[in-house]
């Protein structure tokens, strides 16, 4: 047994070697340089912040950023040679840009939570604003009517936009007519329509002409314009993932093309289609501009989608922010928290659905 040709241990050592980058080794000297390059600029900056009364923003940009850049460059030069000084600077600004973006996100979320939580209560999410003046204390009245309004508008728009969006996707992936590139192009172009223009369009076509009144249905039509491209593009991606074997198999068994789509392809892509619908909902649920032009405003609970003005969460927030009463502004923050929770739930659901294997 002296002639072992295939030795597993040797294979693994070879693999380890290929994975290594000797020039990128994290030696003790390198670690020390990185630690120094992080600590020294921070220490200088903090010292300046406490010692002088220069504005903190000024210190961060005029003092901290240049020092940190120089420190990074010096550390890189000391350990890896001058060639890498520029790399260190890029790493510093890239991390800086990332932190900046996350600070913005955290700040937005934190502001909504901090200002929204005190307002939140059972009464706030269930009651409406009838008989409530802007000066009424926060214990009374709430956004129940706006929640119902949002749900109503979003559901109606989903009923309109999801079938149309899925049909568009079916046209692109299943029917494969001659106009496929054009249909794709129009869907792309439609996804760029500003929300305020969608609102104006519904307003001119249906409300100014007297066909519809300002109502949940008019708002849902405007929402549907914004929702359709999202649904169509996601559904297209999903339908492409359905194995071709399923289609040919069903055709070979003698089904008609329509049956292949309706009873084989669409059921196989069920989860994906649901994801597409939810992505569409998440796209529109916070849109404000179209609502301001199409659904009007009211303080009472409305479930009639056709002839009465209705309130929704975005338009509620918009109206109450502009109020001079602090309590009214507080209600806007509360509504913003509820809306944000709604958006986050939809976001998380789509992420969970899309992270699973497609077609299941």
């Amino acid at each position, binding site marked *: 047994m002296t002639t072992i040709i295939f030795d597993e241990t040797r294979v693994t050592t070879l693999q380890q070697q290929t994975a290594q980058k000797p020039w990128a080794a994290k030696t003790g000297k390198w670690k020390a340089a990185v630690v120094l390059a992080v600590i020294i600029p921070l220490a200088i900056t903090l010292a300046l912040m406490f010692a002088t009364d220069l504005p903190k923003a000024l210190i961060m940009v005029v003092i901290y950023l240049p020092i940190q850049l120089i420190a990074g460059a010096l550390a890189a030069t000391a350990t890896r040679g001058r060639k890498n000084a520029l790399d260190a600077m890029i790493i510093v600004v890239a991390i800086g840009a990332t932190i900046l973006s996350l600070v913005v996100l955290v700040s937005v979320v934190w502001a909504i939570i901090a200002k929204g939580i005190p307002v939140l209560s059972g009464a706030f999410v269930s009651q409406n604003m009838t008989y409530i003046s802007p000066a009424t204390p926060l214990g009374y009245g709430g956004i129940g009517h706006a929640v119902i309004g949002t749900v109503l508008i979003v559901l109606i728009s989903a009923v309109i936009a999801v079938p149309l969006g899925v049909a568009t996707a079916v046209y692109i992936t299943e029917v494969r007519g001659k*106009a496929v590139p054009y249909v794709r192009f129009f869907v792309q172009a439609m996804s*760029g329509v*500003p929300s305020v*223009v969608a609102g104006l369009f519904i307003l001119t076509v249906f409300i100014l002409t007297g066909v519809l009144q300002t109502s949940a249905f008019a708002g849902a039509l405007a929402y549907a314009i914004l929702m359709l491209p999202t649904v169509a593009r996601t559904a297209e991606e999903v339908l492409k993932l359905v194995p071709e074997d399923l289609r040919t198999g069903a055709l070979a068994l003698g089904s008609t093309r*329509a049956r292949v789509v309706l009873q084989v392809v669409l059921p196989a892509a069920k989860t994906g289609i649901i994801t597409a619908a939810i992505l569409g909902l998440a796209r529109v649920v916070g849109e*404000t*501009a179209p609502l301001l032009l199409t659904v009007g405003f009211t303080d009472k609970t409305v479930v009639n989608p056709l002839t009465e003005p209705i309130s929704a969460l975005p338009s509620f927030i*918009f109206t109450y*922010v502009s109020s001079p009463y602090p309590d009214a502004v507080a209600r806007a923050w509360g509504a913003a928290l509820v809306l944000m929770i709604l958006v986050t739930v939809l976001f998380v659901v789509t992420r969970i659905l899309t992270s699973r294997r497609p077609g299941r």
Partner: protein
Amino acid sequence: MSVATEEKRDLTAAALSHRGDRVFNRIITGCAFTALVVLAGITVFLGFQAFPVLQDQGISFVTTTAWDSFGTPPVYGIAGMLWGSLLLSVIALVIAVPVSLLLSIFLVFLAPKPVSKIFTNLIDLMAAIPSVIIGLWALYILQPTSVEWATLLNKYLGWIPLFDSNGNFIGSPFTAGIVLAIMMIPIVTSVTREVLGRTPPDLINASEALGCSMWTMLRYVALPYGRGGIVGGIMLGLGRALGETIAVFFVLKLVYDVNWFHILYSGGGSVATLIVAKFGDASGSLEQQVLLAAGFFLFAMTLIVNVIANLIVARTGRVKS
């Protein structure tokens, strides 16, 4: 007869002898053209409203800044708003493009996989925040900070005309531009991240083997490789910025005059915001029609930007795959 030939052309995939299939295909094809119908509808209906306004006001509608509903005759000009939309977008681009590029460089080339995954999700969540919430936050949290920054800029760089002040920093294009940048960053990042992530590993390894530093690799491999996609992503963000209405409404003081480049002045313009701000108290059908005409110009502007962006993205996508 013509129907029969049409069907033969349509259904090259399989001969559709079944009548149900033909009906099904027609329904699907009809639905697929909803997007075209909507786009055409917007063009026709808003154009129909815009035409009389242009006829009435002439070219001065887009070149002057007069806004007087009670004059005889009433005069309207949206030059300040059109320029304002562009100015805000430029400010947003100047902030958002470097940040998005650096952010995607961090996510693709620097961050460990799990960190990159979490941060990507967080940035995507940022894109999902409704604009009314961004506006609310901008009004109460961002505006005080950005006013502080504006004061500093004016104090130390005030000798540059760009950073001149008219004494009040609230409601400046500067703040509104920052808000737009915040809304653009997730959109631009999601495209640039994907484009940079598609750089072939072979090329990166080869450049490393040649002794390139990361900067050299970015400069000569990754960025040229993804240039088209990056430009397209930036233009998609620009389209979003031009059409953004509500978030800007909260932090920009609308003035009809053209604010050419004084980004710290209190007061600027934005077509989209003008529509929402004025529609509620539009006096009479003429002013309403004027706002619809403004909407038509907004639609045309964003449509052009978006079409160009999509063409660029599509072209580079094809070359790559």
